[in-house]
């Protein structure tokens, strides 16, 4: 039985797809059979981030409409064993998804996979609702700024009231906070919310803090999830987050601004 994890945020552009790609890859690297589903029908991005855009033949909507089966649709990752991508349709919109269709696909995937990562679209409408409805766990991606925090708060409220687990009165969806684009220097300057500010407002356990990094943009453009680049802080931070997701206890890194070298301090820079 697979564990279904939704990567969501409410707000757009905070790093949901980057996170889905990184966490999905990290879980597969740890030996788990993992599939990442792109729920952003009409704004297909996951295939670009994963670098498999030229291999998309069928998509999620085709499977739901019984126009293709799972084996035809799933794209096998070239770098990592056990990792698959289910692309969204670029020509359709969110209305092409149905609750029954999504449930059927997730059930079928559950039989053979260990983890199903649902990459949610932004917003709180149908697409986002479908992505989170069947989730066992949720990774709430948040940037350290007030509007992103408020939108995350909103999506947490929806997880607690409109998910399948909430509606059926089961154990609540397990929530994780993932702070991305974190810049400790700017936090010290008081320009950015700190980890504890965000934790205080959202009141859910912290899964990881991904430092702001040029490597993330570069990785996206190259279609290679940043977690593959273990020379970068962002790559390391994602690896830590995956370990925590798998139950390991890992100390948090990259929370403080790098100390200025003695030469820079003497120069007064």
């Amino acid at each position, binding site marked *: 039985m697979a564990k279904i994890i939704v990567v969501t945020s409410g707000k757009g552009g905070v790093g949901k797809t980057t996170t889905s790609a990184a966490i999905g890859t990290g879980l597969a690297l740890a030996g788990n059979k993992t599939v990442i589903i792109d729920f952003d029908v009409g704004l297909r991005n996951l295939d670009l981030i994963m670098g498999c855009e030229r291999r998309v033949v069928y998509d999620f909507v085709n499977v739901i409409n019984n126009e293709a089966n799972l084996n035809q649709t799933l794209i096998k990752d070239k770098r990592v064993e056990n990792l698959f991508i289910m692309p969204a349709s670029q020509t359709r919109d969110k209305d092409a998804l149905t609750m029954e269709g999504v449930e059927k696909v997730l059930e079928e995937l559950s039989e053979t996979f260990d983890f199903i990562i649902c990459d949610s679209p932004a917003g709180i409408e149908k697409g986002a609702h479908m992505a989170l409805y069947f989730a066992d766990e949720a990774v709430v991606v948040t940037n350290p700024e007030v509007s992103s925090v408020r939108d995350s708060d909103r999506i947490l409220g929806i997880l607690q009231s409109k998910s399948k687990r909430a509606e059926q009165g089961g154990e609540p969806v397990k929530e994780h906070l993932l702070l991305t684009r974190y810049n400790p220097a700017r936090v010290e300057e008081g320009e950015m919310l700190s980890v504890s500010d965000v934790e205080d*407002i959202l009141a859910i356990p912290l899964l990881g803090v991904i430092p702001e990094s040029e490597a993330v943009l570069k990785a996206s453009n190259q279609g290679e999830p940043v977690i593959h680049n273990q020379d970068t802080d962002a790559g390391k931070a994602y690896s830590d987050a995956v370990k925590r997701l798998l139950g390991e206890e890992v100390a948090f890194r990259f929370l403080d601004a790098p100390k200025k070298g003695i030469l820079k301090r003497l120069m007064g820079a």
Partner: protein
Amino acid sequence: MNDACFQLKGSLITTFILEISNYNLLDFEQQLSKKVQSAPDFFNTSPVIINLEKLDLDTNQINYQELISICRRHGLQPVAFKQTPQLNEDQIKENGLALLNQKACGKSEPVNKAKEKPAPDIKKTQIITKPVRSGQQVYAEGCDLIITGSVSGGAEVLADGNIHIYGTLRGRALAGVKGDLDARIFCSTNEAELVSIGGHFLLSDSLENQVWKQAAQFYLLDETLHVSPL
């Protein structure tokens, strides 16, 4: 077809029950006379049911006719006897009175009445143990509201009574929404967007320089909303 001569209708009539606990006709008449004189209009021609339950009918020879006459002399109208085991039913019928069984008389013991008193009408306070998230709304209708966590920005909590927030209030809190001006709002940390009691409100603009980020209570005084530290 002939027109019906009569119709039977059910009705409930208030009567007295005359409970005799000591059979002594002289004393009885004296005491009854006194009672009736205290409110002659009230007792005038009132129907009365006589209850001899408390008398030992084996040792007391009851003069039914005399008992009934005494009542009539003082303006009461005996209509029936309450049925008890050793009652002389023939004599009662001879005097033209009815016999009422236990059920018809209902229960009259004051002790039982106290037991049947309904539970006091207190509506339970609504308690929310999860954080109230942005976009969520909680309304405690007809009662107080307790929130053990925080109220996020963009969330709204309302109550007809008081509101207690044991976390941080960042959203809106409206107490006494049906007009209770004595309602109050309490919070462990005040970072409220809006606070209102009985329709009198304050926005964060004017709250930011009073008890901000501290434990606070809000209350109305002379139709003005006041904030004070807790």
